[in-house]
């Protein structure tokens, strides 16, 4: 594995910190006019999701982490594991609850998902920014109320519950922003 010295650190770089793979969220060069330089890095632990700041001296280094974001297709959930397939190699991987986390509620079969592999094991799953999901349960729509505000909860086919406008009916397909968990529009 390669070693990166702290002056090579860049946003997005994946390194091993205290035995865990981490991603650099923000890298700042801190240099008092007199005195040695430091590199202050906001890190995200890719296993736990924890975000924190660590400061490195200029001669420190970090080992690169064998972390790869891979485009995969979501296949199914067997009750315990979520199964994904690389559409190019047809290789399959199974991710557990820890790796899938909150993304579970946005996973629709056959959707394209980014699976993050560390040493070829899935450690996290990122759904597309927008998904289209069917409403399986919500209060009946209010006729004529297409313009005013107001919202109600709706349960989607994956189990996710989102706030939707009052005019949305059961059976409709909605476009949802998975980063905020918010309703965007009806799907066309």
């Amino acid at each position, binding site marked *: 594995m390669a070693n990166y010295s702290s002056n090579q650190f860049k946003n997005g770089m994946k390194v091993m910190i205290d035995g865990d793979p981490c991603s650099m969220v923000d890298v700042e060069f801190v*240099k*008092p*006019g*007199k*005195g040695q330089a430091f590199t202050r890095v906001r890190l995200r632990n890719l296993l736990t999701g924890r975000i*924190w*700041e*660590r400061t*490195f001296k200029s001669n420190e280094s970090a080992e690169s982490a064998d972390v790869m974001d891979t485009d995969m297709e979501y296949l199914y959930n067997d009750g315990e594991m979520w199964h994904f397939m690389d559409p190019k190699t047809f290789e399959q991987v199974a991710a557990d609850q820890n790796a899938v986390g909150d993304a579970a509620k946005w996973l629709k079969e056959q959707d394209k998902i980014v699976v993050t592999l560390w040493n070829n094991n899935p450690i996290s799953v990122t759904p597309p920014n927008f998904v289209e999901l069917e409403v399986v349960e919500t209060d009946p729509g209010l006729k004529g109320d297409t313009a005013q505000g107001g919202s109600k909860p709706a349960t989607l086919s994956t189990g996710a519950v989102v706030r939707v406008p009052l005019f949305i009916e059961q059976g409709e397909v909605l476009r949802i922003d998975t980063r905020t968990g918010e309703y965007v529009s009806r799907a066309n």
Partner: protein
Amino acid sequence: MQETGWRPSAPIENLRARGKVLAQIRRFFAQREVLEVETPVLSKCAVSDPFIDSLEVSFGFQPGVEDERLYLQTSPEYAMKRLLAAGSGDIYQMAKVFRNGESGRRHNPEFTMLEWYRLGFDDRQLMAEVEALIREVVPELQVRYLSYADLFEQELGLDPHRATLEQLQQRCREHLDAPFDDDDRDTWLNLLMSHVLEPRLKGAVFIHSYPASMAALAQVRKDAQGRQVAARFELFVDGVELANGYHELTDAAEQARRLNADQLQRAALGLPQRPLEQRLVQALEAGIPECAGVALGVDRLVMLALGVDSLEQVVSFMHERA
């Protein structure tokens, strides 16, 4: 896709504002009868400071053949002091300076430094003049003065002059994740300063009376509590370091000792050994007038005038576009 790499980093209206600040600075010194000078950007000698790395330039009488290794200045300080010793009187200059490896939101490997020297001034008088200059550019700025020890005592309950290495290290680790080792007290003081205290410095604050170990080229004196302190100050504006000044060292033997100490520290840290500026020592031996001097980052001053927080807003072409 349209190629945009040719474009300046900063918007043109910011560069107009920058031009005005440069004119204000020159007017300020003209009114005070301080002479504008220029000194070489390329020198046979490099800065001794272990934590400032000079860029090297190859000079030769034929292309590709090096006859002499030269160094881009990291500050015009050495040459300006040689002028002072030669009888120049009060002088200032705005010059490009170069620092290897320094690149970030508030750092660019080349930047514009304003440096000036005032005969008969001490650090307090010079701080007042720095304040006057800053007020020309940013009239509404509130300015405070605080000693390095008072800052540490007020914010951390720590005496920076007397705290042990272990105490400083422990205090650092309470505030930040910095698991490395370092047996230099100054490293931990610098960490506390840059990571914990600077972000708390709102408005313009002069921090003065630094620990003697950080004297650089400043005189050392005793403070009211009998502690050895450097006659050095720094100006921070909203946590950004803007200027660094000294009641200048005039003692040639002490100057020679500090250059050699820097060189030894460089060796211990595995840093390059470069020619020391012995002509500075000779100039002090010949006699340099009592004076105070300060360096101020012009790009950062323009940032302050425009209320922006990154250098690329005020520099025509940053490193990546140069």
